[in-house]
């Protein structure tokens, strides 16, 4: 117990470097997470999020740097550090051939819980994670959301003070996502420190007390979601049209309407115009009046908040790594590109609902 520190930060990471061959995956990562805080590492695929989590959870040794969890030096004392945290990876690592209760009971045993405490703990977690009804069903029959909840429950069996959540909601439907979010929030309220990685801005915004923006193996900005968003251009309005020739004409109107230096983007594929706004209602009213006067028919209007790409564009002066890889020829078959498109569609869908 001499090595543990009960008052310092829950997680303290300094100068973390890791390279594979000539490629630096982590290029000097520093951050601290206070006790009971939710800290989100936000960044695109390949930014170094999972490598960071793998180093923190003793799976990978860094080339340089220091990691302390609850005061325990992770690199020097990995066995002791493993008592301080639990890992929920990107994939729901639960056994399909076991029931939910069996998965939990096995992990209770592997975490060396006293035999008398195991049964109560398993029942308690099944209840808390809304899985009591499916406790004796095999996981093979679980939905994606149920698997993630079980996965999270399994991580919590020994009540670790620190929890690593690596992209906990990737691939989940919106309802399961919201459910998982409230579970994570409650965990933080009950005293668990959470390090979360995500590529979704809305997830970081909803959950994190503080966000570390990670790109190309470095943390490029840290702050509360509000602090970060304040550095990012505001909302956008997206007008969609039925006719191709209307797009350019509307873009001209929008450009004339906006303040000098504003960026109005046109998208030939979706026949839409995207303009920045500080007063969406007023700008929509004005633009609709002008397009009506010009005889342009607007087919759809949506209000879009800052996206992860906007944050990157503002903070790094260039598009995110993901955007760049999308531009590379032939990269559209890559699953990352597919995922990104899917999230964009999902996002626009939500925005339309919001605007309606």
């Amino acid at each position: 117990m001499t090595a543990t520190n009960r008052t310092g930060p829950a997680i303290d990471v300094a100068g973390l470097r890791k390279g594979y061959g000539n490629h630096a995956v982590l290029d000097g990562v520093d951050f601290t997470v206070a006790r009971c805080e939710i800290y989100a590492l936000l960044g695109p695929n390949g930014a170094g999020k999972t490598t960071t989590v793998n180093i923190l959870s003793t799976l990978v040794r860094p080339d340089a740097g220091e990691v302390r969890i609850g005061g325990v030096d992770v690199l020097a004392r990995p066995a002791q550090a493993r008592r301080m945290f639990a890992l929920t990876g990107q994939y729901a690592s639960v056994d399909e051939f076991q029931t939910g209760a069996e998965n939990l009971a096995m992990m209770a045993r592997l975490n060396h819980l006293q035999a008398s405490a195991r049964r109560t703990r398993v029942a308690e977690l099944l209840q808390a994670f809304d899985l009591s009804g499916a406790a004796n069903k095999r996981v093979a029959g679980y939905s994606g959301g149920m698997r993630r909840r079980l996965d999270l429950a399994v991580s919590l069996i020994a009540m670790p003070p620190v929890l690593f959540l690596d992209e906990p909601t990737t691939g989940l439907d919106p309802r399961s996502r919201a459910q998982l979010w409230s579970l994570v929030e409650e965990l933080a309220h009950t005293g668990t420190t959470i390090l979360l990685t995500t590529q979704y801005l809305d997830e970081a915004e909803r959950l994190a007390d503080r966000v570390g923006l990670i790109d190309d193996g470095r943390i490029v900005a840290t702050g509360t979601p509000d602090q970060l968003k304040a550095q990012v251009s505001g909302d956008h309005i997206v007008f969609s049209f039925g006719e191709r020739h209307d797009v350019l004409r509307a873009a001209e109107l929008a450009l004339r309407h906006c303040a000098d230096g504003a960026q109005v983007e046109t998208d030939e594929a979706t026949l839409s115009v995207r303009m920045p706004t500080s007063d969406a209602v007023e700008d929509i009213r004005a633009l609709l009046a002008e397009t009506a006067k010009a005889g342009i028919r607007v087919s759809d209007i949506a209000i879009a908040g800052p996206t992860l790409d906007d944050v990157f564009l503002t903070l790094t002066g260039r598009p995110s790594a993901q955007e760049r890889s999308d531009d590379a020829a032939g990269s559209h078959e890559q699953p990352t590109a597919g995922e990104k498109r899917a999230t964009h569609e999902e996002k626009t869908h939500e925005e339309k609902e919001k605007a309606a």
Partner: protein
Amino acid sequence: MSTITMTSRGVEVRHQSRWSAGSDIIAMSGRELRRSLRSVDALVTAFAIPVSIMLVFVVIFGGAISSDGDYVNYVVPGTLVLCLGFGAAATAIGVAQDVATGTVNRFKTLPVLGSAVLHGHVVASLLRNLAACVPVVVVALLLGFRPAAGLSGWIDAGLFAVLIILAFTWLSVLGGLLLSVDAAGSINFVFLFLPYISSGFVAVDTMPGWLHGFADHQPYTPIIETLRALLDGAAPGATLWVALAWLAGILAVGAVGSALVFARRVKG
């Protein structure tokens, strides 16, 4: 939805001891046995296929290869070894799945003996394959297999089978750690076809000359001949030591290789 009430914060956690490693391995073995017993695929692979192989060799090929009935006694040991290898190879798929699903990552971050998950695979494979031997031997006996071995011969044969399973299983564990799930699934073809080019099913003399060198010196020939001698109540002689050397070598490569690869294998 109910709320999380973490009433038992500060659950009693015992510290790791010499005994907990054994307990970890038992927990992992139980996990693997569930995997084996709960999937129709796994049950067919473990039990139905070995029995079918025995039936095919004795009933279908047996008549053509030898009409005097002695072929049953000749072919059963080879078929048993083939079945043990085939059964052990299933371990590779389970291990590869554990790597692919991130389960290995999770186990490695627990305060347990990390390799307990691999030991669990091996213990389960041992129990599964020994159990699979029972119906295979019963079918062989029904088909006219009449081994001359007494009780001690059977015990020796059983111990030898344990060594075979351990060696083949650790090699499969290594394969599972190195390969994708799909590739791991095809490892059993090695265990399925290599025995044919040995003295297990037909005498090496009857094979084309260019195969003799391989057939005489590959591990299956001494392994099968040792088991045949043990079941026949005869002294295996020098072939026993050749077989033991091969099995010890395979076991060492499999177990040491697995330990080295396991320490570095990370999904993600």
